[in-house]
């Protein structure tokens, strides 16, 4: 290819490369530099100021806990939706449903937070009917409590998680599910030994995106959360708004980022561990592998193990579902 054209393309790409470097990568590096570069000299002084402040630590724990609950609840809500769209909806309707799921996410985040504020307000569109049904106390509302923040986070997370997990659900080979059932696994067992392992990558992605985004949020809690609901992000945001763009703010940001990434790594390792069954043969299964590999196929025409009362034989066999999966893939 023409080397001149290649250089030309690189030159034309330079504004983009420069912009990314100067306004994304360099700033993030400088943030870390600022965090360790205290007025008193290089070191962890500023981190010490963060870590030694019990209020900061308490809010950090609260924020990570909130992010964890949001992640678990959102995935529990979204996974069945992703599964349904990925496996039980025709090719033609699928894009329509996915678009319906993603549209709220793409409309302005702050407008959605505001809409949630309107929805949850005391005597508002949600609480007034509940009151008249006698389900809520007069003038009660979760608005301006951490619960409202939680609801908002879950609401925001559903769209993305559905989109991410949908790609996993769509890809699972139906023969794996059939094999699992034939080999006597009940629905719960199939979920943990086939579906979770086969979706591990997307599950980790969903956990990572949701957790990091939630842990780093501040607008939701500022608008909806009330005084009790202050998140770690609010501490950072308030410092900046107050003109405190200093090393301690940088240290706070680095602490938040590192802490949330650490939790995500732990969760990812956990998911990977749970997903082990679908990995290549382990010594546990080596002995029975050839046997179950053969029994996988004929078993399909045999009695279905769906009834959920697997006999002793099928229990033993269902241990080697991963082996059957291996054969099929």
């Amino acid at each position: 290819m023409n080397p001149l054209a290649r250089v030309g393309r690189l030159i034309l790409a330079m504004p983009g490369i420069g912009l990314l470097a100067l306004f994304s990568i360099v700033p993030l590096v400088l943030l870390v530099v600022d965090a360790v570069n205290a007025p008193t000299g290089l070191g962890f002084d500023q981190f010490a100021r963060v870590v030694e402040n019990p209020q900061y630590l308490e809010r950090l724990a609260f924020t990570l806990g909130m992010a964890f609950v949001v992640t678990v609840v959102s995935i529990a809500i979204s996974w069945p939706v992703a599964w349904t769209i990925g496996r039980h909806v025709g090719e033609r309707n699928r894009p329509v449903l996915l678009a319906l799921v993603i549209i709220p996410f793409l409309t302005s985040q702050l407008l959605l937070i505001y809409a949630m504020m309107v929805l949850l307000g005391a005597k508002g569109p949600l609480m007034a009917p509940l009151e008249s049904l006698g389900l809520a106390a007069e003038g009660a509302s979760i608005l301006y409590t951490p619960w409202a923040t939680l609801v908002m986070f879950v609401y925001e997370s559903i769209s993305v998680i559905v989109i991410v997990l949908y790609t996993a659900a769509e890809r699972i080979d139906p023969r794996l599910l059939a094999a699992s059932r034939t080999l006597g696994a009940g629905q719960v067992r199939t979920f943990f030994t086939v579906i979770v392992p086969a979706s591990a990558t997307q599950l980790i992605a969903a956990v990572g995106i949701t957790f990091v985004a939630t842990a780093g949020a501040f607008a939701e809690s500022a608008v909806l959360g009330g005084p009790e609901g202050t998140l770690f992000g609010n501490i950072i945001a308030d410092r900046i708004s107050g003109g405190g763009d200093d090393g301690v703010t940088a240290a706070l940001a680095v602490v938040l980022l590192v802490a949330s990434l650490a939790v995500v790594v732990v969760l990812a390792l956990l998911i990977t561990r749970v997903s082990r069954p679908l990995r290549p043969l382990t010594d546990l299964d080596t002995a029975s592998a050839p046997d179950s590999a053969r029994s996988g196929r004929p078993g399909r025409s045999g009695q279905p193990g769906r009834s959920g009362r697997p006999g002793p034989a099928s229990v033993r066999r269902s241990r080697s579902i991963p082996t059957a999966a291996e054969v099929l893939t």
Partner: protein
Amino acid sequence: MRSRPALLTIWTVVIIVVLYVPILAMMVMSFNDSRFGTLPFEFTLKWYAELTPTNPLIQATYTSIQLSILVAGTCVVVGTLLSLWLARPGTPWLRNAVNSSLLATVTIPILILSVAILGIANRLGLGQSVTSLWLGCTVVSLPYVVFVVSARIASLDPALLNASRSLGFGPFQTFLRVTLPLIRSAVLAGALMAFVTCFNNFAVQLFLAPLGVQTLPVNIYAQTRVGISPDINAVSTLTILVLIILVVVLQILSGNAAKVVSGTGPSGTGKETR
């Protein structure tokens, strides 16, 4: 297998409906008389009548639109050129570095990125200014444009470009007459994506906008600290309607806006190029 489990179907329908409940509630309340957002419902149009050009909300909306157009324009030019370079082999280390930066930019919480961008803006002497607002919003929206446009370029048939070359077109002519027409809808989708993400980009605007420049999200944010004001309902209703239309157009143009936005990265657009 093919039969649809009733419970899953019901759950899916319920969740999708729930996703629209806050939006619909706000739209309904924008026609409600109460100043405090309370029921019973009494129909009125007075909150829409308050949306005169002197209303700060309307001025903030203008600011948001201007900013988003500026950013979308920058993103489309810069992002398309970047995508064209990314699509060709050579200098793998720089290519990997650029791809990682794009991913980092969309993954790192926007709050932390904003703090970092404010830091560099202060160092460069820009501080909180229109320039830092413009560049900050551009860098945050840029990855989405690159994801959309790159996906389309990757799906192009290289034979077309080779044919153009062997028929005597130079690289520039090839771009104008072959590549650009083929990626036009993706570029348009990228522009829309940049517009929408910039319009919504609240954190960057909050921290980088100079005193006296308020975008719509920043204005609403400031007002919510005081309480509900029903003219926000009206302006939000109109804005969300426009955004929904833009997103629908975007979805049609790109075919997979959902995947790009969710951070699962670029993938085939699923449409044939010819």
